[in-house]
Each structure stands twice: as C-alpha cells, then as structure tokens.
C-alpha cells in the first residue's frame, strides 16, 4: 500500500510518501525511501500502539467532519492522508484552490444569521455565516476568495457537524 501523507497542516506542512508491506512479524515500511521496520496494534478504536526500534508510541486519533489530527504524546499534528491511486484523493488534492469549496459546520449549533448574500464576492477569511453553540456566536469563514455560489444555511435552523453551510467558488 502506498500513501501520500501531509503532516503539519496547510502552512509549513510536509508531504511524505509511505509504502507499507506486511512482513512475517510486523510491517516493512519505507518512509520517503527510508526502510523502517515497525509493529503496530490497534488496542481500541482511535488508539494505535506503535513500536519502532524498541521505542513505543501511543498515538491517538482525533477526527472531525472537517479535519484529522494525530496526537503523538502531547503533540497534536494535523494530518492529511491520500491514496495516490484514489480518484477522489487526486481530485481533492488538485481541487483545493480552484473549483467550489464547501463550507461545513464544524460543530453542532444553530444558525444565527447570514453575513453575505448568495452571489456576493468574498475574500479568504471573510465571515459567511454565524453559528451559535453553548451561548457563544462563531463566525464561519470562507476558506478562499471567490463568489458565494450557494448558501444552504437557514437562520434559526439547527446544524450538525459536517453539514454544508455554503459553497464558495
């Protein structure tokens, strides 16, 4: 199996190529061409026990509707994983800046108001929709500069994480 893995978020992130092959005991892997022998067990959901040359790591996975983070010890790292053979991954990899971007609700809440109208031009980072949760109001911002193609959020309506609030193209 081959994966392309971005570690460290959008700014300053580094792309790694990881090849994995099952060995008699554990896994043979090549990370950016370097061979490493590892042993890995998932003792429970979202927890990975990893052994690398006698060093033991407990890695925890934090996954939301919008992003993925791994905890190595007390360090939290943003991770994005792609299978280069997957059509969807390739589309996603290439489609981030061009094409439509969905703005998803990051948490459950209630739509308080819309800050822009459908069709308006917005800057990256401009607030699009205000969602309220736990008595706090949060501006959900546009991930890119472009035109607001569609607004699905309805003021007063409840939203769940991952629901599409708007699309910016």
């Amino acid at each position, binding site marked *: 199996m081959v994966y392309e893995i971005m570690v460290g978020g959008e700014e300053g992130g580094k792309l790694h190529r990881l090849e994995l092959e099952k060995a008699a005991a554990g896994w043979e892997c090549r990370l950016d061409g370097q061979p490493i022998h590892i042993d890995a067990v998932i003792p429970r959901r979202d927890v990975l026990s990893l052994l690398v040359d006698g060093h033991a790591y407990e890695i925890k996975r934090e996954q939301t509707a919008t992003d993925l983070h791994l905890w190595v010890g007390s360090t939290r790292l943003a991770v994005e994983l792609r299978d280069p053979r997957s059509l969807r991954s390739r589309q996603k990899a290439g489609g981030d800046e061009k094409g439509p971007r969905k703005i998803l609700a990051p948490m459950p809440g209630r739509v308080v108001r819309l800050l822009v109208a459908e069709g308006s031009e917005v800057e990256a980072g401009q607030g699009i929709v205000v969602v309220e949760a*736990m008595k706090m109001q949060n501006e959900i911002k546009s991930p890119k500069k472009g035109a607001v193609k569609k607004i699905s959020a309805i003021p007063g309506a409840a939203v769940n994480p991952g629901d599409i609030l708007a699309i910016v193209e």
Partner: protein
Amino acid sequence: MFKKILIANRGEIAVRVIRACREMGIATVSVYSDVDRAALHVRKSDEAYLIGPAPAADSYLRMDKILDVAKRSGAEAIHPGYGFLSENAKFAQACVDAGVKFIGPTPHSMRMMGSKTSARQHMEKAGVPFVPGTSRGLASPEEGEEVAERAGYPVMLKAAAGGGGKGMRLVHTRQELRSALESAQSEAQRSFGDSEVYIEKAIVNPRHIEMQVLADEHGNTVWLGERECSIQRRHQKVLEEAPSPIVDPDMRRRMGEVAVKVAQAAHYTNAGTVEFLVDQQKNFYFLEMNTRLQVEHPVTELTTGLDLVHLQIRIAAGEKLPFKQSDVAIRGHAIECRIYAEDPDNNYFPSPGKITVLLQPSGPGIRRDSGMYEGWNVPMDYDPLLAKLIGYGTDRQQAVMRLERALYEYFVAGIKTNISLFRRILRDPDFQAGKLDTGYLDRLLAKANHTSAASAASAETKSLETIAAIAAGMFAVLDPASPASKNGNSGGPGSRPAALVPSAWKQKARSEGLR
C-alpha cells in the same frame, strides 16, 4: 437526616452531589431536559424526571416544575449545585414556602449579598476592607481630587449606573483627573441617563483570591483556606489552586477572619465563598460573596480533608459543625483544571458534539469530577464545562508534576477540548514561579502562539512528524473507520478501506449533491 434529596442541576456537579448522597445513604432525584435524557446525572440517580425542553429557561430554571417534582417524589431537600437557580433568592424563598429545605443560605442572606450596594453598606459597617474610594457619586471635581489623593493614584472612575466598561476611565495623575471626570460623566449620562460617577483606587494587575467559609445554623462560622483563581479568560476561571502561592499563614488567617466577619454580618448559613481582589503589596479588598458551592471546591476539599457537600447536607439538616476553627489544617497543594468543550484552534469557541473516544487519567494524586462519558452527545445548550481534573501533592511542584502526567493520559476525541491549554500553563515559567494575576492567561495565549509556531521547525517535532506519518498509514490499513474510508463505504470490520475501492457512483452522487 434527609432520606431523599432532589438535585436541581446537571453535568459534573449533579454527579458530584449524587455521589455524596449515595455515600450518606440518601436517595437522589434528578431532573433533566429533553436533550439530557442520556446525561450522566440521570444515569446515576435513583429517580429522574423530565422537566422540559432544552433551553434552561424552559427546564433547569423552572422553579415551579422543579418544586412539583420535589413534591411528587417526596424529596425533603433540594441541592441547587452552582449556576442555574443556586443564587436565586426567589427560588430559595419558594422552597421555604413549599416546605422543602434549600441546601444553601437563607433567602434573606442571598438578597443581602446579591445587591452590590446593600452588600457594601452592611460590610462597611462590619469593618470589611473595600477598595479605597467612594461608593457615592462625586459632588464636585474638587471632591474628586481630594478622594483620589486619599486613595492614591492610579484611580478608576466608574459610572454608578454602569456596566460593560461604559463611563469608566483610568486616571494616572492629578492633571488628567478633571477632563477624565467630565468625559466619564457625559458618557454615563448618554449611556445610562445618569451622570453619577464615583472613584475607586485602581488595582493594577490584581489577583483574584477567594476564601471558603462554612456556617451552621447554630451560629458557628469557620474559614477553610483560600483558593487562587487569577487564571481567567473572558471572566471565566480556567485553573484554580489551593493554597495560593503568595498567601502565608498570617495573611490566610487575616483573610479568613474577614471572610467570617462578612458571613456573620449577612447571618450566613451553609457553604459560601468570599471573593477578594489582592494588589501587588498583598493588600486584599472585599469584592463579593458567592452564596453557593463553587466549581473549584475540590481544591479546598483536598487540602483540608473535608467533604464540603457532605457538610452542606449535614448543615442543612440542622447539625452543628463537627469541628472548630482550630481543627482546620491546610495540608499539601491542589490544582484544578477545568476541562471545557472548547476549540483551542478557534479562539476557544465552544465545541459541543459526540464524544467518540474518551481516555481518562487516574492514579496517585488525581481526582476527576466528570459529567461526560464516551458515546455521549455534549448538548449545545449549556455551559461547556465537561469535567474537572484535580491534581494533589505534598507540595505545589508535586501537584504540577502529577497533573502534567494525568494530562498526558487524558484524551477526548469527537469534540475539541482545552486540555492542551493546561500543558502550556503548567510548563510556563511565570506559572511555576507563582507570578499570576487576572491578565496572566491573555498574556500567555498571546505569547504561546509564537512558541508553538517556532517549535514546529525543531528537530524533535520533525521526528514526531515521522511517527505521525507512519501512524496515519497504519491507522488507514488497520482501522476500518480510518480517514481514507471515512467518506466511502461506511465500513464494517470486515470491509476493505474504501480508499482502495474508489466508487465512481459515489463521486457522481457527491458532485450532484453540490448543485
């Protein structure tokens, strides 16, 4: 002693009170809203009754419904916890009228402490120290100059009818005073229709330190030591400890005696907390009294060895305090971290939702008061406090070490929490040196952002990145619920990761969904 107690609250504090009741052989009655049917307090109590829809105003604040449940269930007393109805004198009165014991002070004491001006009048009579200044409006600029001179600069001008920073001016010198007074008065007139402005000495970088008191219904009042609560954000406490790093036995005794004086002046009964502002010269000034059990009560419990909820219940049942002031001894050090459902990457905005993974710390010196469990859906309708993690040690340093270890074990997924914030605080040199004031946390957060950006390039983080990259791949291979398959096949244990079987149908459906 009571046979049955109703807990008019939810979350970790309801669970805390239920535990105390079970320990004392008292049956418990919970109330809950529509969204709290599966909440921990409902699961842990002996009886539970639905009192209305999610908004607190329609459920946890409905005195009539709560009293109706008390009557129906035969509960003899009501523990209000903190928040909701806990400091509502009308509710305390309604309990009296309904013949149910309110576990807390009398409505009379609550009313006296609830109003700042009436509290100040009573307390000044009792000789309680206040921030120097006037509590009445200034008659003339000359009076202003005279009062400011007596209090000492810098001073703060405050609108008597004020709030929200309107009509407030910080004045450093006599030269600035007149024009500041004029502008504060006109702003107060415009904002509140009342130009009355008074002067207080400005406390620069104050600490917030509070004193726990307990009073029985037979005239006995004791103090149980202070809590340092300076680490706050948006007026919300984040981390508290006992004892305070700057309070020595003499200062503790003096603060304790003032706190007892405050409580006695209000004919106070049950558990209460007297809050003080403390300046850089360690002068302390009365701020207000909280007429309820505090969120941070566990640090006092750990350092005194007392159970405050047991004592609250015993006092309400008419018992005398089972110990004297001279029996109270402070031992060791305790620090509490308030675990909130908040997103550290998004300015600590609340983050409700389903808890998909929960790994909880335990072991020596660790106490966890929690209202959450794995699989629970944290509702969006209430305060974001999920749990309290308290570390205890023989001294402050050991308490810090144990907390750091426990935070390393703590993991919550599905929702965001502020757990990472406590690692930053505990490792901060100013925190370790006990250099705290109410502006501490905002300064730390401004500073810490640089540190984390800089350390991202360090060699150690690089090897962690390597581990993270390998781990991401192993998760994808070994765990069917892996990120690669997240949007594909919903994947039972036997199914292959969906990333390996891209579905054109799904792609098509998804892009249709965007139109």
